[in-house]
């Protein structure tokens, strides 16, 4: 019996260690444009075929210079000819956005996950209030496209800082027209606009928020004060804030009976990897949900942005890339 040689990887700009993951796509960079600190990429298939359709609000995970980062898809969502992402340069981040800004060029190939939906529209809603802050406009762009295509009622409140360029503004104005887009600059103006608009939405409206953590929390607080139940509030978090190193704890593996120490400053995922206990993972910062592990005993200290409140209080699973333990010993179903 002869065994066919493994297919060599398409000439990849990625580090040799970056093997193609199962089900992932290899896409070619067909266009880049940079405006201020934001670089927008157009990614196309190598064959010229259309790409998988996605639910508005979806993101892809991109291998960027050996890192994996999640970016919202901003373009057409039905049989798109290209995926479009906008990447904010984070000077002190993990390096993925710097690599996309400094080292990536037209013609190069990128390994990306299929689209994943964690921030969908609400089909039954009578009105969508879309609130974006800064680069958080990216998933909102595909929501606006969907609302236009399906003739859904919507409005956009876009918060931005005094000193920064407003990402994708021209396109946003063209998509929204004159009556559906409100820009708000600086915290006081944003708060005033939100207080006014969230007090006068028809019953049956939903609120979708994407932006920096403090801006999202402020928006949720205002909505709650105005009587919005949490069922009407949907959020897409992206986090660049560093987590504190945490306290050391011991992890017990139920299947093998092994015990590992997770020191301060080392994540549970890293400790498991060092002990050669593989756990599927992607974003490594508590966003994507890939590295969820079942907890058998002990109380997890949840630090992820993925689990719902109910899942958190159930204490029967945790995201091992960021979460740790309240108790000295945590027992996992591994």
């Amino acid at each position, binding site marked *: 019996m002869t065994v066919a040689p493994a297919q060599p990887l398409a000439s990849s700009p990625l580090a040799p260690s970056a093997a193609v993951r199962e089900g992932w796509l290899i896409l070619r960079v067909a266009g880049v444009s940079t405006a201020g600190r934001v670089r927008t990429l157009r990614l196309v298939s190598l064959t010229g075929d259309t790409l998988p359709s996605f639910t508005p609000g979806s993101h892809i995970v991109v291998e960027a210079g050996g890192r994996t980062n999640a970016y919202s898809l901003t373009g057409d969502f039905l049989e798109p000819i290209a995926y479009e992402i906008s990447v904010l340069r984070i000077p002190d981040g993990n390096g993925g956005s710097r690599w996309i800004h400094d080292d990536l060029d037209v013609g190069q190939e990128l390994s990306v996950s299929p689209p994943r939906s964690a921030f969908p529209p609400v089909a039954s809603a009578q009105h969508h209030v879309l609130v974006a802050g800064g680069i958080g406009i990216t998933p909102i762009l595909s929501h606006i496209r969907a609302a236009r295509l399906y003739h859904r009622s919507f409005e956009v409140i876009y918060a931005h800082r005094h000193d920064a360029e407003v990402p994708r503004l021209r396109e946003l104005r063209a998509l929204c027209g004159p009556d559906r887009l409100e820009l708000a600059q600086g915290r006081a103006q944003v708060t005033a606009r939100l207080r006014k608009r969230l*007090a006068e939405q028809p019953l049956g409206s939903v609120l979708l928020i994407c932006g920096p953590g403090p801006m999202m929390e402020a928006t949720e607080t205002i909505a709650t004060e105005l009587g919005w139940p949490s069922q009407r509030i949907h959020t897409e978090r992206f986090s660049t804030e560093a987590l504190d190193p945490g306290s050391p704890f011991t992890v017990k593996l139920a299947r093998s009976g092994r015990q590992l120490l997770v020191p301060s400053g080392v994540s549970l995922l890293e400790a498991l990897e060092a002990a050669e206990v593989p756990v599927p993972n992607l974003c490594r910062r508590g966003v994507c949900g890939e590295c969820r592990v079942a907890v058998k005993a002990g109380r997890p200290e949840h630090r992820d942005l993925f689990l719902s409140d109910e899942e958190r209080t159930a204490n029967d699973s945790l995201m091992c890339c960021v979460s740790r333990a309240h108790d000295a010993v945590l027992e996992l179903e591994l």
Partner: protein
Amino acid sequence: MTVSPDHTSVPRWPDEPPDVDPTGSSYLVVSTGEAGRAVASRWTAAIASLAKPLWAHHDSGESPLALDGLSRELAAARVGTRVMVAAPERDVLDVLRLARAAGAVDAELRAHVTPASDLRVYCPHCRTDTHARLSVGDTVACEGCHRTLIVYHHVSRLHGAYLGYMVDAEEPTT
């Protein structure tokens, strides 16, 4: 019928009236009958002490609940509104049906069912509703097509009615 009530869509109402949700920004309160009035007046007192806007409607319960006022209020309602109803089941289902059709979600609805009322039974053969003092498992002649309907343990939240279906379809007609 031997189906566990846990596995049906027949509503299971709590015994005690729910409290007013203080996180609302305004309230619509509907009641029918004397038992409903007693519960609703406790609610309206609690809402008054919150100093929040209130619209309230009460019917004697002798004739069908008048819903046009509530419909107008719901059409103009903003997010933040809470809807509360204390009445026999048929009126409760009606109010919840209207509120949901206007876009309300479960967190915005509070209901208390007072004893004894007609059931509304929906006939899927002729699409007529029949109202009568009935329980699940009883039979009734449809007011529209005169078929004999059995009241089934299925309640439509959108229609506010129990499903009835022709129970003797396979009996030879005499």
